[in-house]
């Protein structure tokens, strides 16, 4: 069956070795397309080892309508190294193009050339990558730019957009780098324009952002950083770990420009400890890590819960357990985020589902940490942290600069009580420097004064206080804790999802709807406290409930069926790669048929 390609939805895959400039080519491509006003989602895969070779793939999906995930099939594959690209020829859809080196320098062994693998339904474009590069620049190094020029010519894309990005990308290098790369681009552009086209492929008109808005491209981690900056982050403490490291690195560059402070600590225990220490002084403080670091932080998060100290922890998940799959994506740290640590230690856990959500969630996490005096864990994953999307940042900073209930709110008689009972269970919080607010915060169970107390009625009351106060987070202003998409009212199949996988879930839902299945999907952004009411009423509408997750145990499925006592159908994958839309769709179909039968 020929998959009909829409000209306004085209996915490029550039494949080569690390030394070929594969990732750089993908980067220029996505930036140029975003600059033209297209919507872009992009995700790179590179080898775990640091070295000059190893397979790199840069996938860039360019659309005019909003897209929510990458596609399983690419429309155009660009090979910078056949040995790496050959296994991926199969991912090119029918009538999709494969662009490859037409005159390889070495004689290829039988089957070593990509042309032997291109199917009759795919469109082969041989391009003299090396020769064009050498002619334009006296070196073969610009092959990655040559393929971009060719693409621009072939698909009739404004070349100036590329030239601008090339100039920007090599700004810090000698001027000759920009000139020679631009020359390579231009030469290949002419070739692409004049080549005999095997299809009518051209991109539709881009959709520009509304007047006064500028779309920019960001990764999930980039959006987290931006959210932190807009929320007025004061201090950040971190210890490098994939895939969270870029949060530390970018904040290290950005925060000091705005009066903030970043410290690389000796380990994650130290990072969360310092974050809690800073939070105690009233600062907005955060740290970022991955699963192994979160495991180390668990005890200190408990102190944050017990002492009611605000802090924000960004956790970008990777494959686990233990060191696991450091460069692969997974969603298997939900359990530790929600439950990790000693005792009854509920905290707020949020999981954005896309790059725009990363920005909002980051900023709101600081509001919530302050307002409810608690640690807030923001769960990301490698796929979300590293993927690029075009987003339109809000014109006005959407985050409240302070939500602290300070010493001013203290209305008590006599000595100040840090943990005073109040209607909303949140007590006025004095911080060092406040006259008359002196107290000691402790991880021991304590009285309203903060004095250690293990009396039974006190521990009962204080446990209730720490849990009850969090319920208000379910109605935190201007924040989507969960949201339903798709068909309204009763549906055959409902899908519950969280984190990055929700993009694939949405795409699968649209496909199922197109196939005539009544279907809707709900994203759960707040995972603790759980929006039980909303989830229950969603489930009431669903014939069957599917929970696709990138973990083996079904951690959200367990959370929901545990808390609500309702059965769900699980779909669990731990391949290290994002879930495939088709896999979800197949499950939706199966459930819909089972219901019909």
């Amino acid at each position, binding site marked *: 069956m020929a998959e009909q390609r829409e000209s306004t939805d085209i996915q490029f895959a550039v494949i080569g070795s690390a030394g070929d400039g594969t990732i750089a080519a993908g980067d220029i491509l996505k930036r140029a397309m975003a600059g033209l006003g297209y919507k872009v989602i992009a995700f790179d895969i590179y080898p775990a080892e640091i070295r000059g070779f190893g397979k790199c793939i840069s996938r860039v999906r360019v659309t005019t309508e909003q897209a929510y995930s990458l596609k399983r099939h690419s429309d155009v594959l660009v090979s910078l190294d056949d040995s790496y690209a050959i296994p991926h020829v199969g991912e090119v859809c029918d009538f999709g193009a494969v662009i490859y080196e037409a005159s390889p320098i070495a004689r290829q062994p039988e089957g070593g050339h990509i042309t032997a693998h291109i199917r009759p339904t795919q469109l082969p474009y041989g391009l003299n990558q090396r020769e064009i590069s050498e002619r334009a620049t006296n070196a073969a190094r610009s092959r990655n730019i040559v393929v971009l020029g060719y693409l621009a010519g072939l698909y009739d894309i404004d070349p100036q957009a590329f030239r601008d990005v090339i100039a920007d990308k090599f700004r810090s290098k000698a001027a000759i780098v920009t000139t020679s790369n631009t020359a390579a681009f231009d030469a290949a552009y002419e070739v692409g324009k004049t080549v005999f086209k095997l299809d009518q492929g051209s991109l539709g008109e881009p959709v520009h952002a509304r007047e006064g808005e500028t779309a920019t491209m960001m990764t999930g981690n980039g959006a987290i950083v931006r959210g932190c900056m807009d929320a007025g982050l004061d201090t950040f403490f971190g210890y490098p770990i994939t895939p969270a490291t870029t949060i530390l690195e970018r904040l290290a560059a950005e925060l*000091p420009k705005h009066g903030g402070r970043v410290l690389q600590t*000796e380990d994650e225990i130290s*990072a969360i400890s*310092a974050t809690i*220490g800073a939070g105690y002084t009233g600062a907005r403080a955060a740290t970022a890590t991955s699963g192994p670091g979160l495991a180390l932080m668990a005890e200190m998060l408990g102190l944050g819960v017990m002492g009611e100290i605000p802090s924000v922890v960004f956790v970008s998940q990777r494959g686990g357990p233990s060191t696991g799959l450091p460069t692969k994506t997974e969603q298997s740290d939900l359990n530790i985020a929600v439950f990790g640590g000693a005792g009854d230690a509920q905290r707020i856990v949020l999981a954005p589902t896309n790059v725009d959500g990363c920005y909002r969630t980051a900023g709101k996490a600081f509001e919530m940490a302050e307002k409810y005096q608690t640690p807030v864990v923001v769960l990301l994953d490698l796929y979300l942290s590293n993927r690029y999307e075009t987003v339109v940042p809000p014109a006005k900073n959407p985050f409240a600069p302070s939500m602290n209930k300070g010493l001013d709110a203290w209305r008590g008689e006599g000595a100040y009580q840090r943990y005073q009972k109040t209607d909303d269970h949140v007590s006025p919080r004095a911080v*060092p*420097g406040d006259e008359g607010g002196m107290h000691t915060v402790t*991880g*021991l169970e304590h009285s309203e004064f903060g004095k*250690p107390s293990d009396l039974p009625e006190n521990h009962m009351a204080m446990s209730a206080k720490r849990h009850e106060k969090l319920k208000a987070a379910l109605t935190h202003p201007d924040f989507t804790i969960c949201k339903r998409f798709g068909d309204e009212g009763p549906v055959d199949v409902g899908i519950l999802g969280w984190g990055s996988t929700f993009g694939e879930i949405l795409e699968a839902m649209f496909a199922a709807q197109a196939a005539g299945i009544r279907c809707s999907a709900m994203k759960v952004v707040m995972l603790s406290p759980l929006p039980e009411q909303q989830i229950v009423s969603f489930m009431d509408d669903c014939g069957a409930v599917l929970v696709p997750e990138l973990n083996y145990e079904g951690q959200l499925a367990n959370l929901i069926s545990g808390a609500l006592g309702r059965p769900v159908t699980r779909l669990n994958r731990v391949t290290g790669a994002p879930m495939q839309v088709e896999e979800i769709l197949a499950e939706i179909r199966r459930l819909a048929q089972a219901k019909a039968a």
Partner: protein
Amino acid sequence: MTELLKPVYLEDKLKQVRGDGHLQYRSRSLPTWCPGCGYFSVAEGVAAALNRLEVALKDAVIVSGIGCASRFPFFMDTYGLHTLHGRTLPVATGVKVANEKLTVIAVGGDGDAFAIGGGHIPHAARRNVDITYMVFDNGVYGLTKGQTSPTSVQGFVTPSTPYESHDQPLNPLMMLLSYGAGWVGQAYAGRPHHLADMIVEAIAHRGFSYLHILSPCVTFDKTEMTYSNLDVRVRDLPPDHDPADRMAAMEQAARTAAPALGLFFSETRPTLGDGFADVAARATGRPAGKTKAARKK
């Protein structure tokens, strides 16, 4: 025992204590320590030191870990943060990084410091974060009832080492000196006036200061670090000791049989806060100020 040569009359003592103002630093909670515990002298010493340095109650933060020693913040009327076992220093670092204006004092026992928290000490020292760290060394785990600690003598018999401990004790002063700590001193709970003086100096030092306090646990150590043993073992640093000489300080620190009291080492160098000022200057392109010159030294 020079301090006790004159008889002390309660009335006079009370008048004197009320008059000098240091009582305001003590909270209404009476220490829960065993009578005779060395920690009482430290509480008195810190109150006296803060009073002498005129640190406002609201601007002082005492951070501790877990242990008998770490109960300390509850007995002071400043801001306090009683954290987790071993995490005193990173929490204190976070407090100071977030608010430079605060006087931050970190306290804990020898187990809190050199067992579970040992990994944090070198980093606080090399960063030169402007806080004071006081370790109350009783050579035993007090709170958990008498097990061996990293500073216990070899062959120590405790409930967890009923057939004698095998491990050799650490030498905390030597460690701190080699970690690059900018201020290293030692005091003894049995000499409270000297202790108070040392606390004043440690707090006044600009940068990371480490004060090691020998402090008997009267309940769980009846044989080793007792007052009677320490009274005869401790000595003063030689009058010609040069606190600018790190190697000489190490030589003194190596003589563990006769622990020396006093200032082992002191140097001033840019603090972590200075470092942040430099970073801010570079990030914003504004002049770096005077901290650069200090770094050259």
